[in-house]
């Protein structure tokens, strides 16, 4: 099946954005993603397991992330865990979303300046 163009995913759902952000620096497993999101949001955003895995499933189906075949060093690895990574499409979507958010912030700042 041909993939959707990256623009059609915008604006990204909040959960999807958090998950994609967690995968920017490298592969992660489900628990790692959850912890990363929790830390990055100062404990305000917790992706509960079913929500997290539901989103991971959709992201895999849409081709934004994929399951990684590479495993960490055996001493760092838990064989039960599945690792996920960004795909080129996922990276492109994330770039477009960050550009969109930057535009929103610019617009807000411009309005604030006018008010002042």
């Amino acid at each position: 099946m041909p993939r959707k163009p990256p623009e059609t995913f915008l604006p990204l759902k909040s959960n999807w954005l958090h998950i994609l952000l967690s995968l920017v620096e490298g592969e992660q497993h489900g628990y790692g993603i959850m912890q990363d999101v929790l830390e990055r949001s100062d404990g305000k955003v917790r992706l509960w397991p079913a929500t997290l895995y539901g989103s991971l499933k959709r992201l895999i189906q849409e081709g934004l992330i994929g399951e990684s075949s590479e495993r960490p060093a055996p001493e760092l690895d838990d064989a039960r865990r599945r690792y996920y990574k960004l795909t080129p499409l996922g990276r492109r979507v994330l770039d477009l979303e960050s550009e969109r958010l930057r535009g929103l912030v610019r617009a807000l700042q411009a309005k604030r300046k006018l008010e002042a």
Partner: protein
Amino acid sequence: MRTWMSGCQAVYRRLSRAFPHEFRMVCGDGLERLGEDLAPLIWRDQGVLGLIRLFTDIALRLPLEHMMTWVNTTKEATMTGDLFEGTWKATKSERVQWDPAYPQPQQTCLRLEATETGYLMVAYGIVDGQACAERPQSIFSDGRRRPLVDLNGRPIPGVPAGAVTFGGCPDSHTLEVGAEIDGKVLGAGTYKVSADGNTMTVTNEGIGLKGPFKVITVFERVVPDPYLPVS
């Protein structure tokens, strides 16, 4: 307390295993592992309220995933086996481009039937208020070149002798066909079906009786297919 927590984990495990097969194929046993590992931590940090949230999350997601699986199964069941096969009706899309040298039909329909080598295509519609139909033609999608003749192997009026036709599928949603003679292109057509299988954009260009032409038509799949028997 340990028994209480083991009970919670067992219930979580059972709920996780009740997720549809499609979900478990993609996520493996990640959900049940994560839930089981998380339950004691949530209990320690957030108490009963945390556990309620943990179970609410899975209790809401479970029917949602079953519903999504059911919707996908229904969608697949209503799609025809072949993306191109079926009856298509032209729309008034903005992408439509008609050559003014030719009368634009008020209605156009295409019927595509899969054959061993490609498709049998019948085009019909209404032009100047009159019902009309083109002669049925074969569209080949196997990459081989064949003489451009009618279904009975006879020459087609207006088509020079020696013309060949060919076609192929560069991807699963696109069919490209063409006709040429001595290396000179007589015509080319592209049939592109949308990702959801409901729209087909047909681009035809070549040299007709009134000179070069290019026509773009957007079709919608006719559902239910009027040519299929109602069960």
